[in-house]
């Protein structure tokens, strides 16, 4: 999936997105089992066919607020026979600066991140939004597609790269709702992969009429227009079906929805996708 320029269009459209990508995933032929991954094409600079190596980009929110979920991502990947590495100098991808128009600061963070992951075969992020930053914005910010081509959101990596669509049955009987983060959904076209992994593990993903609508986080938007941001979270919460748990691949969305639900005293749990995927896997033991 090489980045390509597409005139003055939205840069992320160069990667496909939305419906077309979703359809592509639907139409994929039956996947090989995960154990065949070594036969798949490896990145150009990767010289050996040993166990696949992945560098985890935990992301700033992941490091501080979803540490256990990030640890679950490591457990999940290891259970799939992946060597996981954690380059210690990593920090933030720079998206907060980029989105608010602070381009030099975003460039500073992108340059740092690109250096940190320069040697990685694959970069896997437990975050759709940060993956979108690496894949859609880095190529033009850094004028290099190098990192974009190797970066994947966790569920996307498991399904599209490893070809694994069944992790286990650890979610049997669970009723959950899924919140699609905007950037995962519209910029990198990750929609079916997480649902597929959750459902194949026995979870019922309950239909939610607002599952694709923005939660109102939007980085600095949440503090620049807090009343609108909160009203958006309320719309999500007020349309939520009767479930105990809402799952999302995006930490910012989870903080927003959880923060608002707690303020309103609404007893719903908001949980990162990585933890649910590890629970799905545990059921296979």
């Amino acid at each position: 999936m090489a980045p390509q320029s597409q005139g003055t269009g939205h840069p992320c459209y160069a990667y496909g997105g939305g419906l077309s990508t979703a359809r592509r995933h639907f139409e994929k032929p039956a996947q090989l089992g995960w154990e065949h991954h070594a036969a798949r094409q490896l990145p150009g600079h990767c010289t050996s066919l040993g166990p696949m190596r992945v560098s985890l980009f935990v992301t700033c929110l992941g490091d501080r607020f979803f540490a256990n979920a990030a640890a679950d991502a490591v457990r999940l990947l290891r259970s799939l026979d992946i060597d996981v590495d954690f380059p210690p100098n990593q920090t933030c991808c720079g998206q907060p600066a980029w989105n608010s128009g602070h381009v030099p600061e975003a460039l500073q963070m992108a340059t740092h991140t690109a250096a940190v992951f320069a040697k990685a075969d694959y970069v896997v992020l437990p975050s759709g939004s940060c993956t979108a930053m690496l894949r859609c914005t880095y190529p033009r910010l850094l004028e290099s597609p190098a990192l974009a081509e190797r970066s994947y959101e966790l569920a996307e990596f498991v399904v599209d790269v490893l070809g694994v669509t069944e992790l286990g049955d650890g979610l049997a009987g669970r009723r959950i709702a899924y919140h699609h983060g905007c950037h995962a959904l519209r910029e990198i076209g990750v929609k079916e992969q997480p649902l597929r992994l959750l459902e194949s593990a026995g979870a019922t993903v309950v239909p939610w009429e607002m599952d694709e609508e923005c939660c109102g986080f939007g980085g600095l938007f949440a503090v620049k227009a807090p009343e609108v941001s909160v009203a958006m979270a309320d719309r999500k919460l007020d349309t939520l079906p009767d479930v105990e748990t809402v799952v999302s691949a995006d930490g910012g969305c989870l903080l927003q929805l959880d923060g608002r639900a707690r303020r309103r005293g609404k007893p719903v749990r908001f949980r990162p996708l990585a933890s649910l995927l590890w629970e799905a896997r545990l059921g296979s033991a």
Partner: protein
Amino acid sequence: MEVHSRDYRDRARRIITETPEVRESVTAATRTFVDNRREAFADLDEAALSGWAKEVKSHALTHLADYLEEAETRLVERGAHVHWAETASDVHRIFERIVEENAVRKVVKAKSMLSEELALNPFLESCGVEVFETDLGEYIIQLLGEPPSHIVGPSIHKSLEDTRVIFHERLGTARDASPEDLAAAARDFLRETFLTADLGVSGGNFLVAETGSIALIENEGNIRLSTSVPRIHVALVGIEKVLPRWADLSTFLQVTAKSATGQPVGCFVSIIQGPGGSAAGEPDGPEELHVILVDNGRTRVLADPEIWEALRCVRCGACLNICPVYRQTGGHAYGYVYSGPLGGILNPGLVGLEETLPLPFASTACGACADVCPVRIPIPELLHVWRRRAVERGLTGSEERTALGLFASAATRSRLFGWAENLAGVLPDWVIRRLPMLREWSDGREPPRATGPTFRELWDEGIE
């Protein structure tokens, strides 16, 4: 029109807290529009249509002067008066002359967002002319003394009950009148007004260069009447409305109607290309036709290499309808004619970034608008251009700049970053309430909890 966009946050807050019913009306109406739109395109190759429409509009905009002159020539051949107006006051002067020469006392108006830009109604009233909006939604908000809240559904923020109250007061309808009764009352009143008006004003959805035709889309028949019954007609056309060929029009009429309301095509499409009874064979229509080609900031947008694509807009309102930010407040929060994602990209170009500053930031960059734009304007990208410029021009405040500068410095030093992350996780409530940004967060939401170890620490300990 006066610009109040700088007050976006206050206006939005007041709408949400003081008139919560606006949020409900706007959300319900826009969701219906979105559902209808989806259905309208279900059996079509939407990507092919929007790709084609994008190229046609881009071509027209990059050959704008040629096509405008071609349209002018065709219109003049058929006996129309064509005026070129750079600013709102140019338009006002043109109207002043028409009003004086023809002793105009009463004007009927078809819906035109451009006329809102030009503050035409207050100007005509200052000339002693009575102005009547004839689109039902426009008529309702004219009675209420409010500006439109949506470019397609101007009274989208009003409930049926709001309309019952104002019609009861002004037209004497029953307090519990049905929607049909309300529409009938407006029709009775407006029919009489059409027949006695001296002048009709309309906008123009498209201006076909090849034939000099102005096309107007509507559902109520009021545009048909406004443009044909009064003795004089004035069409206000933004210069970006040009289409090169007659053959382009039918597809644009469909794409626009489908995107706007989900209709296959508007109930009425009026084509105006000259005064009635003219030698060129227009049997019906006004005795006198004036077409005013209006710039009002558009050439400035066109000359901006990063923003010009915003001029492709056909004003369907699809980006407003899908926008979760717009849905919470409706259009009044945005403080200028254009609201929602469209307002965020177009208003700074038309009236200046300083005047409209928060609008490019009144978006979560969720990208939903880009998916529905029938002419593929890269809206999130254009919003980002304005954000970048706002920062470059120092308009976003030193507090934010300092905070992000510090953040970026820390983010290139991982130990410092880890330390700062730890600190952020354990700030006591009283500190949070005093710190900018965290304060705004915690007004409506609980601060995130982060009491345990960071991932870094878990990794160092070893993950089992």
